[in-house]
């Protein structure tokens, strides 16, 4: 775990990332045009970064692929996905996933 001063440094760096990205085209005094190909690439990158973080969090345990189906994460992701297909959003699918995850984890310790 990144802790103490290095943790604080990591977090302040993340704050700088927020400042830089949100102000990217507000910073220059004169207007800058974004090339079209860059605009397209910029649209795919956030999705790629999220998927790259999420998928291992779901299917891997300490670097190894899941060896059992009795893992509360899988039914939770399934419930979350089904809910998303029914009603897209962030909060609904999240609550649906947790409603499956918590009983499995707490009662059956999956």
């Amino acid at each position: 775990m990144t802790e103490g001063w290095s943790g604080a440094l990591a977090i302040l760096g993340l704050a700088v990332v927020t400042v830089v990205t949100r102000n990217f085209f507000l910073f220059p005094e004169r207007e800058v045009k974004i090339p079209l190909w860059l605009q397209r690439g910029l649209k795919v990158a956030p999705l790629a970064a999220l998927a790259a973080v999420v998928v291992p969090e779901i299917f891997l345990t300490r670097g190894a692929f899941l060896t059992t189906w009795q893992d509360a994460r899988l039914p939770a992701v399934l419930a979350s996905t089904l809910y998303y297909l029914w009603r897209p959003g962030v909060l609904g699918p999240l609550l649906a996933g947790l409603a499956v995850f918590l009983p499995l984890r707490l009662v059956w310790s999956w």
Partner: protein
Amino acid sequence: MTPLRALLHDSHFRRGARDMLDFAPGIAAWGLVTGVAMAKSGLSLPLAVLMSLTVYAGSAQLASLPLLAAGAPLWVIWAAAFCVNLRFVIFSAQWRVHLGHLPRGRRLAIGYLLADLNLIAFQRAWPGARREEGQVRYIVGGIATIWLCWQIPSLLGIFLSEAIPTQWGLGFAGTLAMLGLTYGLMHDRSTWTAAVVAGAAAVAAYALPLKLNIVVAIAAAVAAGLLIEQAERAGQKLKRGAT
């Protein structure tokens, strides 16, 4: 009247604040989840508070938590957050129309606090994409409201989660929240391809040191997404040529 009180009574400021209140329950719930996820990912209490108050970008915070927990090098953590935040780079070009006339310091202070929902509410309230009187005060009303609606539940989540045992695995709430965000960005073939490639590459390259699998996955997915789009456009051109 002091400038602050004058601002609080300004009709544009109030409208900006009111429009944002429509989103308040969603923002609050999202902030609460992020607060809990930060505390339960292993961040110490002061660091979680520092992250909430300074980073102020929910998706980037959530995405950086597993990387922080794994002790990834700083540049990988920052690069991943930068990619998650790239949408703001595009948004900033749109904000420029409405904020570009302000002095740089004020422009950057406002820019730093502009969340996704600010743009959504703003575009609904000011459909013409041009500079108009009252816009800046509208924007400031929105960012003040969203900041409070986010920070209070987020800090509450951090402090409340002290009482929740780690075995509950509530850090997974952050993963589920990111899952919904990811689905929301998948709307055509090139974005689907990018998501599948990124997920598969991140798992396949997991053994790489320094969490470099994230970097590999992003590069592979952006390349795949752009290729698919190119191919689709070329296909359409051919079709048009044939008829």
